[in-house]
C-alpha cells in the first residue's frame, strides 16, 4: 500500500487522534494493519494535534468523519525549527578540519548564512571547575554528539554508519535540542533521536519526485487535495524538523526523570517500592540478598525506554503504545511517555524469575544487563520485507541496502546459554496498563500479574520454553482478560468506544487465591520473605 493510501485510510478510519490512540493502545491499530503508519501516528499525536491530547479538549461528538489534521501547527512547528537552527547554528566549522563532519562556516547550513557572523566564542573552563562543569561548551557538546552518532545502530548500517547525511541530520537535531533543553548532552538521547529519525525516514515522501513520476505517467497515484495535504505531512524536506519535535516530546519526561542522577535515584526508589508491592521475591533478592541497587541497571532500561533490552523490533510497538497511552492520559505538560515503564520493567523481571532463582550476584547482574530476550527470525524477515516495500513504493533516495537486518548486538547473542524470553509487546502493555490502573491495589492485582508471568515461564521445561512461551503468554493473558474485563471482546469490534483504561479499571478478582505464589515453595525464599516483612514492620 502506498504511503498516501495508508495515511488516507488511517485518517478516515478514526474521527479523532484520541480514538486513533486508543485503537493503538488496544492493539487494533498496530504495525500488522496494512494501513498502519507510525510516522503519521507520531506526527498527529506529537505535532499537529498535540494540543488536543488532553481529553477535555477533544470535542465529544466531533462532527468530522475523519481526523482533522492541523496542518497550520505542522507548518508553524517547521518554521520554529528553522528559527532554532538560525539561533543555534551547529558549529561544524569548529570541528577538526579532518573530520568528515567538518564544514566551513559559510556553507555550514542551508539556513541563514548571516547567523554565522555572530562569532560565538569558545568558553575555556576554569580548570578547577572543568570536571563538574554544569554546562558543556558548544564544541564539547557537538563532539560528544558526533562520537555517539558515529556508532548509532550498527545493526542497520545503511541508515547511519554508511550515510553521512543522515548522521549529520541527527547530530543537528541533537545539538539544537541540547541548546534548548540540556545542561549536558547525555548518551542515550542519540539513540532515541536516531530511532525516531529512522521511522520517519522510512515513510518520508519527496514531492518533487512524485510530481516527476506523474509526468512520466509511470506513477499511478493521482493526487487530490487531501493527498497534497498528506504529502505535506510526509514531506522529506521537513524530515529533520518533524524528527526534532517528535523526539523532543517523546524524550521530555524521560529526560526529566531519568537523565539526572538525583531524579534517577528517586525513580529507582519509586521503582523499588512498586517492586516491593507486587514482586516481593525480586525485591528481596535484589535488595537484601544480592545488594544490587536498582539504579545500576535501571539507568539503561529507563533512559533508552527499553530499546537496548528488547531490541528495535519489540521496542517500537512498545513505544507506540507508551506514546498513545501518554496521549490519552495527558493531564499536564509534557505528555508522559513513561507512565507504563516501571510496570513493564517489573513484568520483564518476573519473566526471568526461574533464572534469577538459581543465580548468584554475577549471574543476576549479567541477566539484568543482558536481558535474555529472544529475537525471532520471522521478525527479521519482516523488517527486510518492509524495507523492500519502501523501495518499490517511493523509489526515491531512501534506498535501504539489502543487508538491513535488525540483528541485535552480536556481542550479546552468543554469550549466554540461558533460555531466552520471547516478548509479546502487546500482551505486556496490556498487563502494564492493568497494573497502572490498579496502582492502589498493586499488592493484589500487580502481584497476580507478576505471578502469572513468573509461572508461565517456569512451568515449561527449559527446552520447549522459548518456542511455546509466546502462545502460552497469549493464552494466559486472554484468560486474564476474560476474568477481569468488562466486555473487552465486544469493544474490540467497535474501536470508537474502546477505552482500555476503563475496561481494565477494577479487576474484581483481586483476591485470587488459586494462584499460590511460586516462590513460597522454596525454603530460602520463605526465609527471605519473613525477613522483609520484619523489615517492613519496623
Amino acid at each position, binding site marked *: 500500500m502506498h504511503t498516501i493510501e495508508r495515511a488516507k485510510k488511517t485518517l478516515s478510519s478514526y474521527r479523532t487522534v484520541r480514538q486513533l490512540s486508543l485503537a493503538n493502545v488496544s492493539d487494533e491499530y498496530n504495525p500488522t494493519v496494512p494501513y498502519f503508519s507510525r510516522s503519521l501516528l507520531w506526527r498527529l499525536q506529537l505535532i499537529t494535534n498535540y494540543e488536543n491530547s488532553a481529553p477535555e479538549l477533544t470535542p465529544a461528538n466531533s462532527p468530522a468523519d475523519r481526523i482533522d489534521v492541523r496542518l497550520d501547527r505542522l507548518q508553524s512547528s517547521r518554521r520554529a525549527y528553522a528559527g532554532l537552527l538560525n539561533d543555534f547554528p551547529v558549529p561544524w566549522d569548529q570541528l577538526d578540519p579532518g573530520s568528515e563532519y567538518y564544514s566551513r562556516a559559510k556553507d555550514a547550513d542551508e539556513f541563514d548564512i548571516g547567523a554565522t557572523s555572530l562569532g560565538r566564542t569558545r568558553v575555556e573552563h576554569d580548570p578547577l571547575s572543568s570536571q563538574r562543569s554544569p554546562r558543556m561548551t558548544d564544541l564539547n557538546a557537538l563532539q560528544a554528539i558526533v562520537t555517539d552518532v558515529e556508532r548509532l545502530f550498527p545493526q542497520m548500517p545503511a541508515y547511519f554508519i554508511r550515510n553521512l547525511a543522515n548522521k549529520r541530520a541527527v547530530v543537528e537535531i541533537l545539538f539544537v535540542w541540547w541548546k534548548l533543553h540540556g545542561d549536558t548532552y547525555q*548518551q542515550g538521547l542519540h539513540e532515541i533521536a536516531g530511532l525516531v529519525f529512522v521511522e520517519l525516514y522510512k515513510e518520508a515522501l519527496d514531492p518533487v519526485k512524485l510530481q516527476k513520476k506523474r509526468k512520466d505517467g509511470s506513477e499511478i497515484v493521482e493526487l487530490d487535495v487531501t493527498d497534497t495535504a498528506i504529502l505535506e505531512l510526509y514531506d522529506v524536506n521537513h524530515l529533520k524538523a518533524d524528527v526534532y519535535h517528535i523526539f523532543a516530546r517523546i524524550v521530555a519526561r524521560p529526560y526529566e526523570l531519568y537523565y539526572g*542522577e538525583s531524579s534517577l535515584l528517586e525513580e529507582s526508589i519509586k521503582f523499588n517500592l512498586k517492586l516491593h508491592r507486587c514482586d516481593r521475591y525480586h525485591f528481596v533478592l535484589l535488595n537484601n540478598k544480592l545488594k544490587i541497587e536498582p539504579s545500576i541497571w535501571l539507568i539503561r532500561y529507563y533512559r533508552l525506554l527499553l530499546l537496548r533490552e528488547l531490541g528495535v523490533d519489540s521496542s517500537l510497538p512498545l513505544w507506540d503504545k507508551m506514546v498513545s497511552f501518554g496521549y490519552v492520559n495527558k493531564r499536564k505538560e509534557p505528555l508522559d511517555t513513561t507512565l507504563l515503564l516501571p510496570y513493564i520493567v517489573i513484568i520483564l523481571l518476573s519473566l526471568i524469575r526461574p533464572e534469577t532463582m538459581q543465580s548468584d550476584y554475577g549471574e543476576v547482574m549479567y541477566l539484568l544487563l543482558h536481558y535474555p530476550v529472544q529475537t525471532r527470525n520471522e521478525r527479521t524477515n519482516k523488517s527486510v520485507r518492509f524495507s523492500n516495500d519502501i523501495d518499490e513504493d517511493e523509489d526515491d533516495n531512501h534506498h535501504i541496502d539489502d543487508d538491513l537486518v535488525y540483528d541485535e548486538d552480536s556481542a550479546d547473542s552468543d554469550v549466554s546459554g540461558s533460555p531466552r524470553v520471547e516478548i509479546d509487546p502487546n500482551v505486556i502493555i496490556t498487563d502494564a496498563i492493568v497494573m497502572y490502573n490498579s496502582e492502589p491495589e498493586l499488592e493484589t492485582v500487580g502481584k497476580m500479574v507478576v505471578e502469572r508471568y513468573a509461572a508461565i515461564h517456569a512451568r515449561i521445561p527449559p527446552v520447549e520454553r522459548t518456542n511455546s512461551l509466546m502462545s502460552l503468554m497469549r493464552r494466559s493473558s486472554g484468560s486474564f482478560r476474560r476474568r477481569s474485563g468488562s466486555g473487552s471482546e465486544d469493544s474490540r469490534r467497535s474501536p470508537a468506544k474502546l477505552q482500555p483504561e476503563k475496561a481494565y479499571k477494577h479487576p474484581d478478582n483481586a483476591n485470587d487465591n488459586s494462584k499460590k505464589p511460586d516462590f513460597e515453595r522454596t525454603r530460602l525464599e520463605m526465609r527471605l520473605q519473613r525477613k522483609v516483612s520484619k523489615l517492613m514492620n519496623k
Partner: protein
Amino acid sequence: MSSRKKTILKVIILGDSGVGKTSLMQQFINGKFSNQYKATIGADFLPKDLAIDDKQVTMQIWDTAGQERFQSLGVAFYRGSDCCVLVYDVTNTKSFESISSWKDEFLVQANVKDPDNFPFVVIGNKIDVEENKRLISGKKAQALCAQLGNLPYFETSAKEAVNVEQAFDVVARNALQQEESLEFADDYTDAVNIHVDGDNGSCAC
C-alpha cells in the same frame, strides 16, 4: 567446580567516551573486535573465569559509560572494586588529559581503604592507527603514569588484539593481590571471633 569459595575480582574500566573501553573488554573476553559497538549507557557487566597461577578466579568487569561523570551513582558502580583500568585513546589528547581526573573521581567515590596502594592500570588504546595520527607518545604517557604513582602502563590495540591479554593479565594479578589483602584483613577478624567462640566451647566441655 570446587566447593571452595571462588574468588571474585571486580574490575572497573574508566575513561573518556569513545576511547575503546567496550572494545578492550570484548577483545579480552570474547577475543574479537567490531568497529561498531554502541555507546555504553550506564555500565555493562561481563564476567570471565580465569586462572592466575593455578588459582581459579572470576573476573567481573564493569565497562562504564565514558560520557558519564557519575556523582551519587558512582558509589554504586565503583564500590568494592579490586582494580581500576584507566583508558585513553592515543589519538585523542583530551582523553589523555582526563586520565588523572578519572583516577581522582574513582578514589573519591569508590571509598577505597588505602588509596595510595590501590591498583590502577593505565591503557593507551588504538595504537594500530597510522603514526601521524598518534598524538600521545609512549614517553609522555609513561611520564604521567610515573607521576600518578608508578602505575603500570600498556599500549594496546583492541582492534588488532595487541597487548590486550598482557594488560589484563596484570590487571588480574593486581586485582587478586588487592582482593587477597582485603581477604586477609577479613580472615584476621574472623579468626579472632572463632577463637573466642572456641574458648567458650572448651569451657562447656
